[in-house]
């Protein structure tokens, strides 16, 4: 049985948006980064979801006649994951530097420090 075909996507949309919301709503830089990671990871899920073929298996050649899921999204997401971790690393390095420079990692406090 194929479950009503779009529920998966809707949940994924929810995931993406919760990540997006975290980024937008929090003033804490670390949490912003976490939110970003959440957002990106959810996008990965989105891609992978669309690559799934009902009745398919992992795209590693096995017995002839096997049906495989689509390998292309997998490849794309492998790349995207790498990009994600790279961004995280750079973001975290920046956060540490910000903490050293400002003594805080809260957005509003940083802004207050600049104004004074």
């Amino acid at each position, binding site marked *: 049985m194929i479950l009503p075909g779009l529920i998966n996507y809707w949940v994924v949309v929810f995931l993406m948006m919760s990540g997006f919301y975290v980024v937008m709503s929090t003033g804490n830089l670390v949490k912003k980064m976490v939110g970003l990671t959440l957002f990106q990871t959810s996008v990965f899920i989105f891609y992978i979801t669309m690559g799934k073929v009902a009745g398919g*298996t992992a795209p590693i050649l096995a017995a002839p006649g096997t049906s495989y899921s689509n390998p292309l999204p997998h490849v794309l997401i492998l790349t995207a994951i790498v990009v994600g971790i790279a961004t995280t690393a750079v973001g975290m390095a920046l956060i540490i530097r910000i903490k050293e420079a400002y003594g805080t990692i809260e957005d509003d406090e940083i802004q207050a420090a600049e104004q004074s």
Partner: protein
Amino acid sequence: MFAATMAAVLVTMILALGRAVLGPTTYDRILGVNMAGTKTVLLIAVLGFLTGRPDFLDLALIYVFLNFIGTLAVLKFIEHGDLARNAGDGE
């Protein structure tokens, strides 16, 4: 058969997850997460059999490894005493 096992694993995961979400202390959360992590290993192992392609157990293996490393990192973090201040974070 595998399906039933799978279901049980899922239920356990839900329970562990519940602990992770509910807390109340940070350590309960870590415990929940850690336990759910090992359950993921089982999940993947069972899944391999369920889908008839059990040759992806490397995945399960890496999960065990990483779960361990993750937990150690957490411990290292706690040892630095940073968490002492907010041990019982309540809600």
